[in-house]
């Protein structure tokens, strides 16, 4: 297998449960027990109330496209050349947080704002699985 040259996440203590979840096939979100709200990206405190009593909950994995762009040039050396064109999208998850990812499983021209999507997991290396989204 060719070496994976695209950028990889470098998990911290605050983000590792998210990436571990992806590897296990579960999209997890951090929730704050103090204010009862989820947030994303994962971090060491709640951006809504600065609470630190956080817990991880499995998300539905369902959402809708908030915006999207079909990328036609590799911005990381030549690493993305083989993937062009690819779709970067921001997805509004049912839980009320937004996540940036890719839409896969359909042609770039088929992606529209508001379209329902569901998570799919892509094991890009033995250690890292990326959550991407496909048409629901």
């Amino acid at each position, binding site marked *: 297998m060719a070496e994976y040259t695209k950028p990889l996440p470098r998990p911290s203590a605050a983000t590792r449960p998210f990436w571990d979840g992806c590897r296990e096939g579960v999209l997890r979100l951090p929730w704050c027990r103090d204010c009862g709200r989820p947030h994303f*990206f994962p971090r060491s405190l709640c951006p809504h109330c600065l609470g630190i009593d956080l817990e991880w909950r499995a998300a539905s994995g369902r959402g809708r496209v908030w*915006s999207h762009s079909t990328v036609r040039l590799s911005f990381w050396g030549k690493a993305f050349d083989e993937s062009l064109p*690819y779709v*970067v999208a*921001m997805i509004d998850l049912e839980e009320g947080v937004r996540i*940036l990812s890719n839409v896969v499983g359909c042609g770039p021209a088929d992606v529209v704002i508001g379209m329902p999507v569901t998570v799919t997991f892509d094991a890009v290396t033995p250690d890292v699985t990326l959550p991407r989204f496909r048409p629901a």
Partner: protein
Amino acid sequence: MRPVCIVGMGETAMGRLEGSTSLGLQAEASRLALADAGIKPAAVDAVYNLDPYTQAMSMFAQSLLEYMGLRPTVAATIDAGGTVTPMTMILNAIAAIGQGYADVALCTFGENALTGRPKGVHGLPQGPSLGQEEFEEPFGCIGMVIPYALVAQRHMQRYGTTKEQLGAVAMSARRHAGLNPRAQMRKPMTMADYMDARPIADPFGLLDCSVMSDGAGAVVLTTVERARDLRTTPVRVLGFGGKATHKNVNQMPDLDDLGLRPAGDMALGRAGLRITDADFCCIHDAFTISTVLGAEALGLCAPGEGGPYSAAGTLDLGGPCPVNPHGGLLSHAHIGGMNHLCEAVRELRHEAEAPRQVAGAKVGVVSGNGGVFSLCGVMVLGRGL
């Protein structure tokens, strides 16, 4: 507080300046600004600059003062992003001079972003991941084009903004650049040129994107009292407003909640003016959509109307409120928005080349943002004391 004004302005050549260094460019712009003001270097007691985006360095203000042989009381590098960086330098200068901690402040930014970046890099080279880049870069959301493309796509879907309307923004900037002998991109642009440009990240092609430039700009501030004895027409900061909401695009609020509008309202309110009082605007146009959103947020047109407003030719010189008479980041040069401040000063001093000069300009509005509309700032500038 002692009242403060801008008394000096300098810009280097812009474009591909082989052999240039970021320090050398900042020093040259600073030398020009001090000479313009007629202030001796030894009088500079506050220095504000920013280290180059293409090669992050620490304590770059010290590097500059050492290079120029300055010995100021205050020196700092300030990174607020985009045009908000020079605005924040100016705010710091006003505070330091106003409180009497300094008498003459030098604010500069510029770099050799075009010739100084590694070969084969599109846009800015990538630095180490800091924070939530962990949740963007692995998905191929890298650099600034893709985040702004996401914003543009949202605007197009929501308001029906068209690719041709974005093209009108690029063409207006190019027409203005054609009148500016210092502009980097002066070759006339047709709609066909725009539509046929290399696709980058939908809806953007190459001509939706600002240029990469070598160059630097600088402004010098001092007290109004001292300005009375100087030869240049002073320019006052009549008001500033700012609003920060996030850093990376994945945390961006929706179009209605961007910081541009509250920043503009605050700045104009502070100045006691309305947008109709502005003789021209300099809007941070890193991408074509930036001008559209900037025009809407400043109230030049209604929310969602930025596309038709641009397509009607309203941005051009001769219109009700010309936007980016220098050609903007899209066609003049991109040195972090420093040129937007310099152009505003030049227009307010009535020193722009004849076809570019907005006749009788008294009030100019500079609107900018750092990041992806992350930290927004608006500064209202006025001619004279």
